[in-house]
């Protein structure tokens, strides 16, 4: 914990006044109790700072993604307008916001009731626990508040030097490829790009099994001649590919590739690097949305409802539970809600029950009688421990893959629907394996199509060849066109994207240049004709 000096400081106990409004005294009184209850529950969070905001300020902070200072861009204004409009029409309101930083800032809305705010704080501390302990957040920068502010300063400086419109046009183009990143690279530590040395060469060593120095005579048997020859061949191939500038395997991280390889001016590369960092910072949050929100909901449910924190600061010990239930219903939706947060919450509750009753392992799987299953209870009480393990190690895909089974599916009445030709939505099946497949598809790669860069120098003509891993779902064509135009803008190269339409027919998007009408759709035959490929 890097911010030890902040312990017991008045700011942590809620006596801060700027920005925002004074924390109401009745909330201030109960804040230490909430912290204490959370710690006893086992939450391990970053030092929290609670701030009360008016609705306007909340909208501002929320449209900046939870951070006070960002680079100037109209997209924040767009979100702000949307939020203001939503609030005006009474459609939605933001109860709380919490960000993945240390110390963690918890923003509460000043029009919330006392119970709402107590809930919000418990919920936000759950998030903070997740940010601090989950494997996928291990390498995120916990000082992002300052980092984002620095990005803002740098981009403002570039704007005054190179012209606001020019910089904004560039940022607009970069933001379109923001989602084309490899989420697994969030683990990679940041590296400074190596300077380009003309005769720089990457040396490769053949892989070999280790032999003990006293048993060198075994070497010929362990690292056989054939094995070593194959290794040498592999290295030779890789080196040749390096010489020719070939790409050996598809690159999912198109944003990163363009950042490192496109011919950009220094200010452009700097902006790209900053935006790449921001995209990577948000990647784990996209990957763990269901688990994270589920865990935070689980925390506030446990603390407020089961441990009775809902009566904090109220007149009687049993006050507030109905109001809490109402609040919860608003957040998670009703009985049949398909809200992804509800899915995460239900999964965690199910895990807790199973591990409390010992419904796992081979012993449980062998049980066939329905009655025996119903009454199975070994009183193990491992539920909470298991939940904290899940929080440490799982992301959305893993969570659904491991715990979504037929029992869970039946209990929560999931079904699978399909749209028919005549516009009717018809229930197809209640089979867990089908539903699970769909849910996983919805959560893997943050629910976005998988696009990878196959060849940056296609046919030796400098064409960027991208490929869409088609899984039956088609792409939204107007946005594909605009994104391809942006890739063209950034790399200066023509772009090809191979995909399929809904019948499985191949379509190839071809972007020739920077402009609205520069993208065409080709069939394979037309593509062959256009690029002079003989069959």
């Amino acid at each position: 914990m890097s911010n030890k000096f902040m312990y017991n400081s008045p700011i942590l106990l809620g006596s801060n006044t700027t920005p925002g409004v004074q924390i109401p005294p009745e909330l201030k009184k109960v804040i230490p109790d909430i912290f204490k209850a959370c710690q006893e529950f086992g939450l391990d969070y970053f030092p929290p700072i609670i701030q009360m905001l008016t609705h306007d300020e909340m909208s501002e902070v929320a449209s900046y993604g939870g951070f006070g200072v960002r680079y100037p861009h109209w997209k924040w204004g767009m979100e702000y307008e949307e939020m203001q409009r939503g609030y005006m029409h009474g459609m939605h309101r933001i109860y709380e916001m919490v960000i993945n930083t240390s110390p963690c800032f918890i923003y509460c809305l000043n029009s919330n009731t006392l119970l709402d705010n107590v809930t919000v704080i418990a919920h936000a501390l759950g998030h903070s626990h997740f940010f601090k302990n989950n494997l996928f957040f291990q390498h995120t920068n916990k000082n992002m508040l300052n980092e984002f502010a620095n990005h803002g300063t740098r981009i403002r400086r570039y704007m005054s030097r190179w012209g606001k419109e020019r910089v904004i046009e560039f940022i607009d183009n970069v933001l379109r490829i923001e989602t084309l990143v490899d989420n697994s690279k969030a683990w990679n530590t940041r590296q400074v790009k190596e300077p380009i040395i003309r005769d720089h060469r990457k040396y490769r060593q053949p892989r070999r099994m280790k032999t003990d120095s006293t048993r060198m005579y075994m070497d010929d048997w362990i690292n056989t001649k054939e094995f070593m020859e194959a290794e040498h061949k592999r290295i030779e191939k890789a080196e040749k590919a390096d010489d020719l500038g070939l790409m050996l395997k598809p690159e999912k991280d198109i944003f990163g590739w363009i950042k490192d390889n496109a011919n950009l001016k220094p200010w452009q590369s700097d902006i790209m690097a900053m935006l790449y960092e921001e995209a990577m910072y948000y990647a784990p949050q996209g990957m763990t949305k269901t688990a994270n929100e589920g865990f935070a909901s689980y925390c506030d449910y446990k603390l407020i409802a089961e441990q009775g924190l809902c009566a904090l600061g109220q007149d009687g010990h049993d006050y507030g539970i109905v109001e809490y239930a109402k609040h919860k219903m608003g957040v998670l939706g009703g009985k049949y809600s398909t809200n992804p947060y509800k899915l995460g919450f239900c999964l965690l509750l199910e895990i807790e029950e199973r591990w409390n009753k010992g419904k796992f392992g081979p012993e449980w799987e062998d049980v066939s009688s329905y009655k025996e299953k119903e009454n199975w209870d070994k009183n193990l009480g491992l539920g909470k421990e298991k939940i904290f393990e899940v929080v440490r190690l799982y992301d959305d895909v893993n969570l659904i893959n491991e715990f979504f089974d037929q029992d869970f599916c039946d209990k929560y009445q999931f079904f699978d629907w399909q749209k028919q030709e005549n516009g009717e939505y018809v229930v197809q099946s209640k089979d867990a394996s089908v539903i699970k497949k769909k849910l996983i598809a919805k959560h893997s790669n943050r629910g976005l199509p998988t696009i990878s860069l196959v060849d940056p120098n296609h046919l030796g003509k400098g064409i960027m060849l991208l490929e869409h891993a088609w899984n039956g779902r088609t792409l939204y064509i107007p946005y594909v066109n605009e994104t391809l135009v942006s890739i063209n803008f950034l790399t200066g190269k023509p772009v090809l994207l191979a995909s399929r339409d809904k019948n499985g027919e191949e379509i190839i998007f071809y972007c020739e240049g920077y402009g609205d009408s520069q993208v065409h759709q080709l069939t394979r035959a037309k593509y062959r004709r256009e690029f002079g490929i003989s069959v």
Partner: protein
Amino acid sequence: MPRRIEEDHNSFRDVVSGKIRKALKKFIKTGSMFKNRGKNGKVQISIPRIDIPHIVYGDNNSGVGRGDVKPGDVIGKDDPKDGKGNQAGQDEGEGITISLDMDELLQFMQDELELPNLKPREENILDETKIKYTNISLIGPESLRHTRRTMLTALKRLCSTGEINKLHEIPGYKDPVKLITPINSDKRYRQHKEIRLPSSNALIIFARDGSASMDQNKCDIVSDMSWWIDVWIKRFYKRTERIYIWHDTVAQEVDEQKFYRYRFGGGTTCSSALKLISKQFENRFPPQKYNIYVFYFTDGENYPDDNGEFINVLKEKFGPETVNLFAVTQIQAYDYRNSVMEAVDTAVVDNVLGDHVKTADIFLKTGAPEERSDAILSAIRQLMGAKGAAKAGSD
């Protein structure tokens, strides 16, 4: 201190208005402006959705739900014709509809077509009186009392006499306080002042040939053109009046509905319309009080003998001291030779008629909506545009 988000919010508004400009251009160019005449001074325009495009999935034809159902149940229905719903719209028609003021649209049209502002003739600028409460007087009704001035005068009086430092006991207050109490001579009242403002009236006269050769299509063009001319002229004059003249061999004044729809077989004597209009100038609409704009629509056919008469009447009764503009629009003429427009053009070139007489020709080859609206817009530009622009337009 302005909040940070305001800067970004303003730049978002700029992005939106940029999109609106683009949409307006399309709106005017594709002719939807003629279909969608503004209601209540507002015009509906749809702009594309503003978002940062990413590569995303398009269709959403299947999914996961929760509920107490059996396989085979129907849980919802989209209208297949609607095409919206979950299809997420593969075409770009989808967007936000916003309503714009007519003024904004006209301003945009002015920029786009490079039309100059209309100017009233100098002798026609009338004075109009308007009452504004800008004066102050010592007497007046209590309802018009100017409280701030009154208190200020009272304060001045108290300061000059030194009474201001006097303390008064007031029931309900612990400490004695200083008081400013106005007396009658301090009171000041608002008083009105008459301001004379220049003002001008306009009279728009639409006249058209009503012979059998003016078919429905031509009438529609007349209708579209006259509507936009009407909106355009209204923008520059406080009060506008319109009269509609229709003629075959004899001219008559009709109402608006009739003007656009009425057709009757018969010959064509164009000069009859002019004679009827000029009669109106004598009593009803004296040219000294009105800025007169005359728009005459024809398909070019006239009794050949009548063209000379037409020019004569035009020369005598429609001089630049009488009308601001006399515009002849010829729609789908079979032949330029011997048409009304040729006669007028020749007269203008020979300096028989002044600069205030203008002509425009609308001739559609295909009748496609784009061509049609382009032709109408260029005709409006020729008639209302500056001199140079008119020439460029007719080339």
